[in-house]
């Protein structure tokens, strides 16, 4: 009698579900080429950190993933199980644009634009979102009177309130002091843990290491390196990438 | 500062509300008619005296649009007014000939006077306008003309012609055209010590006289005839003919003529009724 082969207990990781894929996409603004032949597939639950110098195309890639710019090449979104709907994306910017209205009234239009037509539901979700980011007690304050960190938290609330599948962040903590930075990062972690796919561009390599599961290095509109986070910081990388990591990238 | 802020706002609101409430809202009135007349007639104050009497007699409200004679006749031609009351006989007769009115009725006359600096450098004083203008031209003194196709302007050109001067071809040295009404022309004359031909009514109510005085008066040529015309309903059917005719009839009636004669400034009668003559 032959022995049953004993299978080692393996971690059953579900196969990665693609969310958005772009294939050889090029984005041009007038005579400037912001992205060149970029191919990338974003999977659900991923936390992709984009690093690179200013002007390397990080912001454009974020906007392309959101669908705000057009490209030559392919950009496809994958319908989400179980109802086959398109993924909902929300974006955070380095300096959040807040309407000169109260904190509440910066969230409510986002809900309305998203299609929430019931006034009660809008109020409920708005309250919830503000509580989540710790701004519940400031709901009626003018949004522009908030501190930098509070404003970014408000922007997070505005993004979170529409229950996005994908959260895109363009250097969200670049302007914040360390305390505010920690608060915002904690909230982003929270959101990612709840299953939201996150793409964050950052100058802060520590942030990339802390938050990311995957890191992509961009240079002059191309994705030069695209690796899981542990490999990115251990492996031998191309020379420019190494130089960037060491902070020695010469100004082009 | 806070207290001032607190009271200023409500105070401002109260004042503005008061003006809007006190000033009566315009009510749509059935018996109204628009009359096109001249600035000189209105500014003499005649209408303020005459129209209330007319309203009392007939209950009709006359709304006066006061412009230059040329513009008043134009308003009549367009049918934007029901009555035209001006002082340029030749132009009025042309208006009737064109069919815009059925009949022209003479109403009253006043006179023109030559106004100038009291020092009278051109030696015009007297009662002969043709001679006066002739001396004015040769002296080169400043003269202000209205130049606006008004009744006064037409009369002024007639008088220059009488003095043997054709303004179109031989402007005297000091001749200036302002293209303006009687008041502004008097203003200019007052500030530049110039001569100007004016109707007596405007002169009597003019307050900015400076060094000006009446230099020539009483000449027959200075006679200024006023006429009233009802706009022809055949040309403009919407005209309120009955109301317009009521005014025309009243102003030449004994009652209207008496009202005209009774209008005085500083005890002086301005207009002399001569309907039917």
């Amino acid at each position, binding site marked *: 009698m032959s022995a049953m082969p004993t299978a080692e207990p393996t971690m059953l990781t579900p196969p990665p579900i693609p969310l958005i894929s772009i294939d050889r996409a090029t984005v041009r603004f007038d005579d400037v080429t912001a992205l060149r032949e970029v191919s990338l597939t974003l999977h659900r639950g991923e936390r992709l950190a984009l690093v690179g110098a200013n002007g390397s195309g990080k912001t454009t890639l974020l906007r392309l993933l959101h669908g705000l710019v057009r490209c030559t090449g392919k950009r496809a979104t994958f319908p989400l199980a179980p109802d086959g709907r398109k993924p909902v994306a929300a974006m955070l910017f380095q300096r959040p644009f807040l309407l000169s209205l109260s904190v509440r009234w910066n969230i409510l239009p986002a809900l309305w634009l998203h299609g929430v037509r019931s006034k009660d539901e809008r109020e409920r979700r708005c309250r919830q979102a503000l509580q989540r980011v710790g701004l519940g007690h400031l709901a009626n304050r003018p949004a522009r009177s908030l501190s930098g960190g509070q404003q970014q938290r408000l922007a997070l609330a505005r993004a979170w309130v529409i229950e996005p599948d994908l959260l895109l962040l363009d250097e969200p903590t670049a302007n914040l002091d360390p305390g505010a930075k920690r608060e915002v990062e904690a909230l982003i972690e929270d959101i990612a843990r709840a299953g939201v796919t996150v793409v964050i561009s950052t100058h802060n390599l520590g942030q990339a290491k802390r938050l990311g599961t995957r890191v992509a290095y961009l240079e002059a509109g191309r994705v030069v390196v695209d690796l899981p986070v542990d490999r990115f910081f251990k492996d031998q990388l191309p020379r420019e990438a190494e130089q960037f990591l060491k902070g020695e990238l010469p100004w082009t | 500062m806070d207290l001032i802020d607190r009271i200023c*706002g409500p105070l401002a609101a109260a004042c503005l509300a008061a003006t809007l409430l006190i000033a009566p809202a315009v009510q749509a009135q059935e018996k109204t008619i628009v009359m096109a007349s001249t600035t000189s007639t209105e500014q003499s104050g005649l209408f303020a005296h005459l129209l209330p009497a007319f309203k009392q007699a007939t209950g009709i409200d006359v709304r006066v649009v006061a412009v230059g004679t040329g513009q008043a006749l134009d308003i009549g031609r367009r049918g934007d007014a029901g009555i035209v009351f001006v002082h340029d006989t030749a132009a009025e007769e042309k208006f009737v000939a064109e069919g815009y009115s059925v009949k022209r009725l003479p109403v009253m006359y006043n006179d023109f006077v030559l106004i100038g600096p009291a020092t009278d450098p051109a030696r015009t004083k007297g009662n002969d306008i043709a001679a006066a203008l002739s001396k004015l031209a040769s002296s080169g003194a400043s003269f202000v003309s209205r130049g606006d196709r008004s009744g006064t302007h037409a009369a002024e050109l007639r008088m220059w012609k009488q003095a043997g001067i054709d303004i179109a071809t031989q402007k005297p040295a000091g001749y200036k055209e302002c293209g303006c009404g009687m008041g502004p022309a008097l203003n200019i004359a007052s500030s530049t010590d110039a001569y100007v031909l004016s109707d007596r009514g405007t002169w009597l109510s003019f307050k900015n006289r400076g060094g000006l005085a009446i230099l020539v008066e009483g000449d027959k040529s200075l006679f200024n005839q006023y006429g009233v015309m009802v706009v022809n309903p055949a040309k403009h059917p919407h005209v309120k003919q009955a109301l317009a005719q009521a005014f025309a009839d009243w102003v030449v009636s004994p009652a209207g003529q008496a009202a005209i004669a009774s209008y005085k400034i500083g005890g002086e009668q301005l207009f002399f009724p001569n309907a039917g003559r």
Partner: protein
Amino acid sequence: MNAFTDSFWIALRLIGDADAELLRIVGLSLRVSITACAIGGTIGVFLGTWLAATQVPFRRAAVWAVNTLLALPSVVVGLIVYLLLSRTGPLGSLGILFTPGAMIAAQSLLVIPLFAALSRRLLLDGLREGGDQLRSLGASPLQSALLMLAHQRFGMLTVVLTAFGRAVSEVGAVMIVGGNIEGFTRVMTTAIALETSKGDLPLALALGIVLLGVVGLVNLLIGWMQGRTPIAREAFA
């Protein structure tokens, strides 16, 4: 200097006496100009919003036209409206020539380019700052422009005051289409013109002082209303 001090005292006396005719004239000026700003403002802001949001090919031409019309002299507007409303004109049957209605129409036309050009500029500045982020929230160009209107409401207030100043101080249009009829279509500016042409300069200047006083009251009122809202206080802190 005499004319100025005379006028100042005359102005005070007129206000103190609450002269009935003065009140009527002031009331009509306010009624005509406020109504004209309401009508012209609605049309003008719609136009400005559309110009800020739209991408149609003839948009450039429309912007050029609006900017050129900013310099439209009030007397020309008066002439145009007069020819339209005259009995021999296309809208003659409305019969509103020489009534306050015609004056409101003329002043509305006068302020539309002002509202359109200034609100467009405000919206464009706002959209330059935050249009992208509003778009990322899913707002269409029109929705972004409308959100910007709410965002720029204090700037809009200045636009309203500018337009009101233009309307209440103009004399060319209301003179021609209103006819300066005593007790019916006489407003502050036409009264000033009349007294000037009669040579009563101190009275004319006094009326001018009263006109400025009225506009000053309006601004005071607006300023007070602004001060009451906490957001405004923060905004001006």
